[in-house]
Structure formats: C-alpha cells, structure tokens
C-alpha cells in the first residue's frame, strides 16, 4: 500500500476542509472498501481523512421519519428497533449483504459510496474507464456475467454492488451532505449516476462534500416487504440480481408499491412504471407476472449475462409473491 498522510478531525468542517485542501484526498470511515482498493492499487490517495471521530453515529426518529447518522454501522442500522419496526425492508437488505464482520465495520455513508465490484475495475492490468478514464471498457467485450441490463453506456457496463442502496432507493431516502459551500439534501434517486460518458463518477457529490446522514420519510411499508437476493452461493456473495419490494395492501388491493432492483445497473434501479401499474390492482399472480414484464422494458444484455433477462423478472415476481403473502 502506498504511503499517505493521515489526519483525524473531530468535527465536520475540519473534515471537509481537509479534503478540499488536498489533491488526492479521501475520507476514511469503515474502510472495508477503501482499504481493499488501496491494497490492490486501484486507488492511491495521498491523504486520508479519518472521519470516525465525527459525531455522526446517531439513529433517531424525527417528524414522522428517521434520521440515520452517516457513521452508523450497517449492523447498528439493521438491528435498530425503529428500523426493524418501521423499515424492515432496509434491515433485510443490509443483512443480505457482506458478512457480519464487514457489516460491523461498514458505515451507512461508506455503503452509499461503495465502488463497483467489476473485475476489470479491480484488475489494474486491464482497461477500465471508471478506474482510468479513456482506457476503454474491458467488460464490454470481455467477461460480463455480473454486469448491467439497464442504463449502461459504451463506456461502462458495471453495476452498483450495494444491497442497502437498493432498499434506500425503494424507500425514497434523502442523503444529507455537508461541504465547504454549505449543506444540501440529495434525493437518493439523484445521488448515484448512470455511467454515460463519465463512468469515473459514481455519484453527484461535489469535491469535499461529506455525507452526514441518510433520512427516511414516514413509511406505510412496514408489513408487506421483501428483499430477495440471488447470488452464486447462499450467503456472502454479491448479487446477480436482487429485488426490493414494499407493498401497501388493504383489502387485497395494492394501495401503493415501491420497487427497486440491484445488480442490474450502475445505480439502484427504481421501477417507477411498474409501481404505477401495480397501484390499485388486486394481489394476484397474473398482476405480478405482468408487473415483472413491465419492469424489464429497455433491458439489454451482453454476451455472458443474458441469463439475467430471465432471472431478473423471476426474482421480482418471487419477491412480489413473498411480500404480498400470495401462495400461488
């Protein structure tokens, strides 16, 4: 690992200032992704700003919703009584990711910032526009079994690897950030980017901006929810495809639906058209099958991930059935 400067500020302004002063500086929280990338030589920051002493660990209920401090660990969020009671989808998604050890270390802010697991991004001998803009995309014509179905570009077909992000997207989270120019709130749907011509940019954060909290609005989706993750082994693997489903069902009628898929795009893939289709429909296998087909509109597969064209709608269908309690 390259040598680097190390600073440990105690307050948010000190942390954001430390970033903007440095050429190649990064925040360090749980380190589960960043330290790995530094060992692999994928990133080589000249300076690390250790933010673990910042007062950003609280999880607290607010007017109708909840505010999750950016430094709350994944385990703390998944085990929190308010999250388990009001946002069970988030707990399910977090517990589907990584291992207990990693969830104890990884933070909510860090999980939002998690880099792709595309093997071409990790292998510094390979071309990758995300790691080295202009070098080309190794996955486009290479081994692309894990890659995107939606919203990819000719520059990058990588996917966002997070499970937590998929649930946060379905639950309409807001990401609060603080920078030297002040504070702002970013809707989760605007936080992560599609690759376009600039796959090196994973998200819409400006230089020096620090995630301080993730807020969730009051949610009626505390009962009929499911997070289904399909992967190469039963546990501790990244998703081939995942589906986050939250339904508000009254008298067997779907009053509202929130749906997102993981493992299929450069950002968590919200299914707004499918949500609109489901609203007002009865809970039935036929309705869910139609929904799963609508969700796949615009999907484009590559040489090795064609199986995802079948796996993705099946995953969503199964998650809809489980969330609604439909036995068929």
């Amino acid at each position, binding site marked *: *690992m*390259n*040598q*680097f*400067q*190390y600073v*440990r500020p105690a307050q948010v302004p000190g942390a954001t200032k430390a970033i903007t002063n440095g050429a190649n500086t990064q925040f*360090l929280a749980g*380190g*589960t992704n960043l*330290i*790995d990338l*530094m*060992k*692999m030589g994928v990133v080589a920051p*000249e300076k*690390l700003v*250790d933010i*673990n002493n910042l007062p950003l660990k609280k999880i607290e209920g607010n007017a109708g919703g909840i505010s999750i401090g950016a430094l709350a660990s994944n*385990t703390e969020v998944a085990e929190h009584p308010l999250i388990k009671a009001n946002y069970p989808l988030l707990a399910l998604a977090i517990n589907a990711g*990584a*291992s*207990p*050890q*990693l969830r*104890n*270390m990884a933070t909510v802010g860090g999980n939002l910032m998690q880099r792709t697991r595309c093997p071409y991004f990790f292998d510094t001998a390979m071309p990758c526009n995300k790691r080295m803009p202009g070098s080309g995309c190794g996955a486009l014509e290479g081994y692309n079994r894990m890659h995107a179905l939606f919203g990819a570009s000719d520059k990058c077909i990588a996917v966002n690897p997070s499970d937590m992000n998929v649930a946060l997207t379905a639950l309409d989270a807001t990401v609060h950030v603080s920078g030297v120019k002040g504070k702002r709130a970013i809707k989760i749907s605007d936080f992560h980017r599609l690759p376009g011509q600039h796959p090196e940019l994973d998200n819409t954060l400006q230089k020096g901006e620090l995630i301080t909290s993730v807020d969730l609005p009051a949610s009626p989706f505390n009962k009929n929810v499911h997070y289904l993750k399909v992967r190469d082994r*039963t*546990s*501790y693997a990244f998703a081939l495809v995942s589906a986050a489903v939250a339904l508000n069902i009254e008298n067997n009628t779907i009053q509202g639906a929130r749906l997102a898929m993981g493992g299929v795009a450069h950002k968590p893939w919200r299914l707004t058209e499918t949500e609109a289709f489901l609203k007002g429909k009865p809970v039935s296998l036929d309705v869910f099958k139609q929904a799963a087909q609508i969700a796949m509109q615009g999907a484009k597969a590559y040489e090795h991930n064609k199986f995802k064209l079948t796996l993705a709608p099946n995953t969503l269908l199964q998650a809809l059935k489980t969330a609604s309690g439909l036995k068929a």
Partner: protein
Amino acid sequence: MSGKKPCIPAESEDLLHGNRRDFLKKTSFLTAMALTPGTVVKAAEEQWDEKIAGVFEKVSLHIDVNGVKHTLSVEPRVTLLDLLREQLKLTGTKKGCDRGQCGACTVHVNGVRVNSCLSLAVTNEGKKITTIEGLANGNELHPMQEAFIEHDGFQCGYCTSGQIMSAVACINEGHAGSEAEIREYMSGNICRCGAYPNIVNAIQAVKQGGQS
C-alpha cells in the same frame, strides 16, 4: 491455544528493522524527487516539505490488546492485522486473503467482531482488542475452544482462530438460534477444508451449554 504472551514493544521491532526501513524511506523519497525534478522547486515555493514529511510520519497509538495496554508508534498504512502479527508478535490471528473475504483475521474490537485486515491500526486509538490469544483464561481454554476440539471443528487449522473468534461473537450477538442462522452468521469465515458441519456442531454445543 497458548496463554497470553509478553509483547515485544514497538521500539525493539524498530531496532530490528530500523535500518532497512530508513533505507527504503530515503530511497523512495529520493526516487520520487528524481522522477519529478519540478516538484522540488514547487515544493520549496509552496512549502510542501511539511506535507511530504507528513507522509513518513508515524502516529502514536494507545491500544489495549488482550488486557495489556500498549503505547505504540505506527505508520498510518499498517493494518490492525499486521500490527498484531508483526509488531506485537501475536501470530494467532491469521492472514488469509488480506482482503476481507475469508475471515481468518477476525478479532474483537470493543467486543465486536471485525476483519482486522481491513482496519488501519491507527483507527483503533483507545480501543480494546481481543485476539485468539486473549480468549483463554490462563491455562483454561474458552468453552468455544474446548468445543472446537471436542467436535473436530478443523482440519488444517488455518481458519480456526478466525472461526472461533467469529463463533464466540455469533452467540454473543444472539444469532445462533438454529443451524441455518449459525450458517448465515458464520458465512464470513471460509474453511477450505470444509469443516463446516463440525463447526456448526461446536457452536450449537456451546450455545446449548449456556456458555459463550
């Protein structure tokens, strides 16, 4: 499993390796300067010398390992795993993948299990670390250590320290309610010998015995 060992202080480690390390530092510094002569001028103009020195600086670290308090001086890039093994000579914690994928390096930080390979030592300032060496009570093995022997929870033994540290945490966290739950919450510890059924048996035995 051996009991607590006396730890070699950081200074003696530096005495052993100081010359080589100093040489590497100086040569990498000089190489950097030789490659980019313009930076020398610029560094002088913008007073970068302090920042460059910052890169080579060691950071003080106060850390409690298995009940022994240490005041150490470490480079920021040293992981908790390397600190334990190389500087404190506590080699019970194993380096497997060194990437957070295998769990062999699992230790407890303030009672919580983590992958020590992905934790920079300096981020553990003021924390209490428990390694496999700190689990036994003198010559009396921890119940999980006894159970791993009793149930043959290993073959080659390389993953065992991590498995045991993880297993103790698994019960403490309340995630050992069933075989399925144990398997899910032990999935961060890989055993290439495939001792999984016996590991699950050992954890269930400790759980049923009410010890952890």
